[in-house]
């Protein structure tokens, strides 16, 4: 879950990472007033979650309140990667002597947090890694012990940095790492981390991502930042159909029947579980099927959850039939899914034998499940029919309609 720049800076300020005195304005008038109070030349930055703001025209400079008003007006009406800015961040323009990069991530193979540092800031760190690897250094550190300054000192010194620069940079990296560990972050990045003409350091821009699964633990911080539960901050905002899917999934804690993603085809999919859904969605596409949705069922969902999910998918305009398919299931019960799906089809006013293109869920309680499916005349397959073959048959049925 990505933070806006002003949220990230609010967090880093709590950890005493040096920052310019930034403000946030949501109208051109506020921006003009703020620029007047700050005095001198200010920078105005679009508050959107997407990157590439500079290139897109989302960052402007102004040397008077009038210019700030004009710049803010332009920024606020400029969508970047489809996102409308929430506000404008304003801070004094800093006299920069040199730019650095500092970031904390997880090294997923070492299974430890890692600090990344470069004396080439202001550009994409992937670019530095590819073209100037000698200007990039990184080290893992302990997630159990308090963050050690010496670790960060070693990292900075490994690029040949010494003197005041070394002693000034070391605590900044430590503080960034502490914020990372304390708040369930998956990325905490300062870029650029600028050395000013007077020798002091300041974080000009930063980027913070929080682990979705850490949200429950970070209630106090999220409340302080005003980030509500409903804000998913995914790559694209959820559609109303997807929001309803999430609501169905949330209304009952037993199992998963949701995680729905909308597509524009005619074949509704009730598929699972995590890996099975990926496999089946690929298979439907490979055989020329046009999926109406992606979803996941698993973890032994209740009859009512499977039923509601079925009704939701059948209510989507353009959905002609549904295919109910999973890998061989271990804990999800075939009979419960069969019962839920059939109930959903019947309650939607359709004939299960007609509406369900195919049912392929073998495994736990399959005997009971197949009995129910036979009773309603639904075409079903056991484990002797592969997932790909099941998807192929479902797609073929759509084409003969």
């Amino acid at each position, binding site marked *: 879950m990505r933070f806006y720049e002003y949220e990230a800076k609010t967090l880093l300020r709590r950890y005493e990472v040096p920052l310019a005195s930034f403000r946030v304005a949501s109208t051109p008038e506020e921006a003009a007033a703020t620029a007047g109070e700050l005095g001198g030349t200010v920078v105005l930055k679009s508050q959107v979650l997407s990157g590439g703001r500079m290139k897109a025209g989302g960052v402007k400079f102004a040397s008077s309140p009038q210019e700030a008003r004009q710049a803010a007006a332009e920024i606020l009406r400029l969508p970047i990667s489809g996102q409308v800015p929430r506000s404008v961040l304003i801070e004094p323009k800093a006299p920069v002597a040199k730019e650095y990069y500092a970031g904390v991530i997880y090294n997923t193979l070492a*299974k430890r947090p890692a600090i990344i540092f470069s004396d080439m800031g202001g550009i994409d760190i992937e670019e530095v890694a590819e073209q100037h690897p000698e200007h990039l250094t990184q080290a893992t550190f302990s997630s*159990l012990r308090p963050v050690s300054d010496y670790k960060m000192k070693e990292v900075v010194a490994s690029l040949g940095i010494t003197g005041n620069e070394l002693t000034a940079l070391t605590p900044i990296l430590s503080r960034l790492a502490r914020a990372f560990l304390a708040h*369930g972050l998956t990325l905490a990045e300062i870029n650029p981390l600028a050395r000013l003409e007077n020798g002091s350091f300041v974080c000009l821009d930063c980027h913070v991502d929080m682990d979705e699964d850490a949200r429950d633990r970070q209630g106090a911080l999220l409340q302080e930042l005003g980030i509500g539960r409903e804000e998913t901050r995914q790559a694209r905002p959820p559609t109303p159909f997807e929001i309803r899917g999430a609501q169905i999934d949330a209304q009952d804690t*037993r199992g998963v029947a949701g995680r729905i993603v909308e597509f524009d085809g005619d074949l509704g999919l009730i598929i699972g579980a995590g890996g099975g859904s*990926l496999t089946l969605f*690929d298979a439907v596409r490979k055989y020329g099927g046009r999926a109406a949705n992606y979803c996941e069922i698993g973890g032994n969902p209740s009859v009512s959850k499977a039923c509601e999910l079925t009704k939701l998918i059948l209510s989507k305009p353009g959905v002609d039939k549904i295919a109910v398919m999973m890998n061989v299931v271990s804990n999800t019960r075939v009979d419960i899914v069969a019962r839920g799906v059939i109930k959903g089809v019947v309650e939607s006013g359709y004939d299960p034998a007609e509406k369900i293109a195919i049912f392929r869920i073998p495994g736990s309680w399959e005997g009971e499940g197949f009995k129910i499916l036979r009773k309603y005349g639904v075409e079903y397959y056991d484990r002797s029919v592969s997932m790909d073959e099941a998807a192929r048959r479902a797609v073929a049925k759509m084409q003969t309609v």
Partner: protein
Amino acid sequence: MSILIDENTTFIIQGITGREAVNVTRECLNYGAKVVGGVTPGRKGRDVYGVPVFDTVRQITERMRVDASVVTVPPAFAADAAMEAIEAGIKLIVIVTERMPRNETVQLIELADQYGARVIGPNCLGIISPHKSKVGGVGGPAEDTRKAYMPGPVGVLSRSGGMTTEIANTLTAAGLGQSTAISIGGDPIIGNTYADFMPLFEADPETRAIVIYSEPGGTMEAQLATYLREQKSRLPVVAFMAGRFMDQMPGMRFGHAGTIVEGKADTSAEKIRRMREAGISVAEEVSEIPRLVRERLG
């Protein structure tokens, strides 16, 4: 032979009185596995299908040898439960819990490293050595597990719990049994990656080939490719890659927490390229896997 678990493996289930954990307990017992105890704080003195329930892990480890623990407690308490098992001296920790905060996963893995314990998962269904034992829900009820798994020469490693059984079932139907199958977990950070398990399979004379189930996201397929090249592994590897459609949808999470395309290197296309370069046979469909395994076994 098998790796990690066999018919003598004793284990406990933390969170044993939970709805799914009760099922897992019954299924493991019916499969012949040695579930020697369970832990749910405040429930000491009860039993689940005859398995005694305790308040703490040490109450069990003080009485008997415990080789492994299955952690099935809610995400807010899972890291704590795993740490309790690690500090009580248990060397194999299978974490079933989904949606654990990543910082806590990392902490418990670091602790496990200090204690010489091995962590499987989080977000996994466990381990099975067919006809010997299963530790976790993998395979489901015993009669279904017996349909899907049989002993043989193939080691299975899968980022998806469900697909572990689908792949084993496909192999079994083709007459290819499994030495040990492991649902390694669907999270971005897991205790052991494909490459971490390879030395164990290398040392197991029964294992003659490896099948992996992989997805977009992360770098553990690249790590396996590097391992195979550098270690000159004796084991041929066959891979199946799901989620190919995701290459066109960067930034969107599907399937598992660890399954998201963030850059060029973690797309399915790039992973397939790297795996093929390292000599891994990549199946287009699950049903192709047995043929590819036989080809590689020669």
